[in-house]
């Protein structure tokens, strides 16, 4: 049997897979030892084995190493957490500058055009809460109790008052009697004194009703006995503090003027009545 390079090339697989007979194997080994080309070919194939063993040891070392998250995962997670924290901080920090009006009221969300850009309910609540938590420092503190309005608008009733017990009164309650309505104020003690003197003089007349109305819910001044009423946002027949109006039994205005300046003419008219 002639073993040459062509034969070796053809039976190389059998050589490595123990597919040759003992005689073929000896002849093949003899040729390979003497042939540089065939020896290089076989050495190249054999040289793969230590590479594979080294590669396997490397792979096994990686598999047996304590598990650590990949550097890219660690960095990525750290960046993601930082970004999330910054986003939350920016989100929760109110954008209202000092001196600016408070945050937008929630009622604006009902506008359809704005509903697209409107933040979710949770965000709106947060903004609202922040506006409440940090009120405008320049604004005066609001009173705990809301006083009744003293300035009546054009649609307000002519005369609507309440007594100290809270019962309301209108002009209908005085119809059939002569009514003297005076408006007093703490700042005008002379008008209060005039009302008191009129009440002391004509208070016993059952056909006359005399009341003093105040635009502010304050206590009656001391040493006075005339009945007082509080205005409930009515126009009060156009009266201002310190003025009076005299109504006849039908509710028509007979006289109006100042409690101080027109005191004598009023007293005269009441006496002549």
């Amino acid at each position, binding site marked *: 049997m002639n073993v040459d390079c062509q034969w070796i090339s053809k039976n190389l697989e059998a050589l490595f897979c123990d597919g040759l007979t003992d005689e073929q194997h000896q002849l093949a080994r003899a040729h390979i030892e003497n042939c540089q080309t065939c020896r290089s070919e076989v050495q190249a194939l054999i040289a793969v*084995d230590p590479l594979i063993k080294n590669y396997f*040891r490397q792979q096994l070392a990686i598999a047996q190493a304590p598990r650590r998250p990949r550097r890219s995962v660690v960095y990525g997670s750290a960046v993601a957490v930082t970004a999330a924290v910054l986003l939350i901080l920016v989100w929760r920090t109110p954008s209202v500058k000092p001196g600016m009006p408070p945050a937008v009221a929630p009622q604006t969300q009902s506008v359809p055009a704005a509903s697209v850009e409107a933040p979710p309910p949770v965000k709106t609540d947060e903004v609202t809460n922040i506006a409440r938590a940090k009120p405008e420092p320049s604004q005066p503190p609001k009173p705990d109790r809301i006083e009744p309005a003293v300035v009546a608008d054009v649609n307000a009733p002519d005369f609507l008052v309440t007594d100290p017990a809270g019962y309301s009164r209108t002009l209908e309650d005085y119809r059939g009697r002569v009514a003297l309505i005076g408006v007093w104020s703490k700042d005008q003690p002379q008008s209060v004194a005039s009302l008191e003197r009129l009440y002391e003089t004509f208070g016993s007349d059952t056909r006359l009703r005399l009341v003093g109305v105040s635009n502010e819910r304050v206590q009656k001044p001391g040493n006075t006995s005339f009945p007082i009423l509080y205005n409930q946002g009515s126009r009060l027949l156009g009266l201002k503090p310190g003025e009076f109006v005299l109504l006849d039994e039908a509710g028509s205005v007979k006289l109006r003027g100042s409690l101080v300046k027109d005191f004598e003419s009023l007293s005269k008219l009441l006496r002549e009545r």
Partner: protein
Amino acid sequence: MKTVAVRAEDIDFEAAAREHRSFLLQIAVASARNPIDAEDIVQEALIRGFRGLKRFRGDCPLRIWLSRIVVRVAINHHRSVARRLKRWVFFADLETVHQDGSSQAFEPPDPAGVFDREALMDIRKHVNRLPDEFRMPLVMLAVEGLTIPEIAGVLEIPEGTVKSRIFYARKRLKEALQTRKK
């Protein structure tokens, strides 16, 4: 090799798993394309083995039976990962992480001086380019104590086929490394 028939009900699976875990890890490393997945593959294979222990007929050593499960899990794992990360390359896998946390680039030796040194840096890439049927028998040769008949038993193919595939794997790898040199 003498094969001792063991009935499934006589096996202390917990003790067997503890005994063969290191060997199975080597099989997983040889089967998987990413060594980081080897531990997970062994764990899943042991769970499957425990659940399917009643199907163990005792016609081969338990570690070979478990190794077959490891190989199947590794193949399925690679397919599922390949679907998810089709074109991603884990550059971190090309370096070795030591116990102290330091890492070192992969530098295989070249005892015969046959191959280009730069090409040897890509040994992992070339190995992973081999088809599973060629790659697994070749790498399993490096598993400590694993013989050709056992490789045949693990891969459930004839011994001659194992030898033939190892030869062609060597040949492909050699050609890949020499082609780069040229």
